[in-house]
């Protein structure tokens, strides 16, 4: 309250004098171009940031292109025609070489110690790569590839670049969606074993994801779709079981693991 009352008692001569002096000092200061210096330095620093960002963008585009190609080529698993899943994976490996090379160029350009200033730019790309690599890995080994294995596969050196845990997990969740589609297509191709394998794998993934505490973020949204993927896979497995299309090994397999 005291301050509010002070305002009304503002126009004293002494104060006006003081103000005039201040005004004079200020003008002098502006002439001395301190403000000018402050902003010129800041602007040049921000310009450097912007240039880095643009150069990264230029390197990112070919990477995105190659990842898109890789992803599209792997889509052939849903309708392989004469190709075997094995040969599709081999082809994926070859395409991965290009992606790895483009990623290498990007990694070199990321300024050290400022990775997280720019990493949102290639987050999507990394997720896709995780999906592709983990898909190939699953088709070959039936297991989940680890975060470290993906990093090694992509030749990421941890001191400069980083495959973040979020990107890895999102990539794995996209893999689950991909696999749920594959169950349907496996049945179309008369492969009744794969749906069971996928069901077991995704169920285990789900159990793993259930251990995590999510925040209300992108990862959480992706995780929410996992239950629908499982549902789809479950339905396929249900239909197969109902028609007695259980592969012979299945019962024994489950018993073994129990």
């Amino acid at each position, binding site marked *: 309250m005291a*301050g509010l009352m*002070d*305002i*009304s*008692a*503002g*126009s004293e001569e002494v*104060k*006006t004098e003081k*103000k*005039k002096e*201040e*005004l004079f*000092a*200020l*003008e002098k*200061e*502006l002439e001395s171009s*301190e*403000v*000018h*210096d*402050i*902003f*010129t330095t*800041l*602007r040049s*620093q*921000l310009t450097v940031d*912007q240039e880095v960002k643009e150069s990264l963008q230029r390197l990112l585009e070919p990477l995105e292109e190659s990842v898109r190609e890789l992803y599209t080529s792997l889509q052939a698993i849903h309708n392989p025609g004469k190709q075997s899943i094995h040969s599709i994976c081999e082809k994926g490996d070859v395409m991965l070489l290009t992606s790895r090379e483009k990623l290498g160029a990007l990694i070199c350009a990321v300024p050290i*110690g*400022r990775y*997280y*200033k720019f990493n949102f730019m290639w987050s999507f790309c990394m997720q896709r790569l995780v999906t592709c690599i983990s898909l190939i890995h699953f088709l070959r080994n039936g*297991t*989940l590839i*680890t*975060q470290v294995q993906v990093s090694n596969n992509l030749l990421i050196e941890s001191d400069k670049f980083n495959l973040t*845990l979020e990107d890895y997990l999102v990539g794995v969740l996209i893999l689950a969606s991909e696999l749920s589609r594959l169950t349907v297509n496996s049945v179309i191709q008369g492969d009744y074993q794969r749906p069971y394998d996928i*069901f*077991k794998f995704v*169920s*285990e*993934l789900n*159990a*793993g*994801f259930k*251990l*995590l*505490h999510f925040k209300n973020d992108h990862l959480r949204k992706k995780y929410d779709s996992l239950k629908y993927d499982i549902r789809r896979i*479950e*339905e396929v497995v*249900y239909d197969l*079981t*109902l028609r*007695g299309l*259980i592969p012979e090994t299945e019962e024994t397999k*489950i018993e073994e*693991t*129990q």
Partner: protein
Amino acid sequence: MSIELSSEGSSKMRGGKRKRENFEGNISKSVSDSIDMNSSLMESFRTFRADLDAHQDKYERLVKISRDITIISKRIIFNLHRCVGSTDREAIFEECVTKFSSISPLISSIQQETMDLDPYLYARAYTNGYQELVEALTFYHFLRYSSLVSYQHLSPFFKGTLLIIDYVLGVLDLTGEMMRACISSITAGDMDTPLQVLSFLSQMNLHLQQFRPFSHKELSNKLRTLSTSMLKVEKACYSLHLRGCSVALIAFEDDEERDLTDMY
């Protein structure tokens, strides 16, 4: 159970929904039973949980500190507004200095939390607090010394954790405060502060508007606000010049009151 049902064979088409759900429940159950909770996959998810939790906890802690900084800074700014037309500015400044020193430990904890980390990893958690604090510090400095304190001068207070962009955004907020100080000094019958603010603002406007090409959303929003603040101050000073203080007051009463209520 599954064998039993599949042997029913033909009844499958008529099978009710409930039966179907039971059945599927069985598949899931047999599979979930078979999941080895100690497999390497589960083990790695346990590590993920620990990592995610640690990351989120740190982020939340930083957000909390940032919020505390914001509260104190906002109070300082309100205090500083009382300087306008006040006879006892020094007392207000002293009070502010005490409050600024109470922020210092908060900055220390931010520094400790982010030590040895990429400064951008958690920057988003405390950018709001820092902007507000830069605003308070620069406003204080402006009222007391009539100059803009530079990034280099502020940096030690932030123990090196202040990012350039936060400084720029804070300074842009400062221009809004200056506009308000300008208008309220007119109401207080102060003829010089408005002109002082005008020359200072136009100087800053000149430089800050050159930041435009950067594709930074927050920055471009604040630059737009700067332009409107600038226009308000110019309009006020124009009336002040033409009509003198008392008339300017009357002319602006309606106009500025509305603008100010917009701001709150």
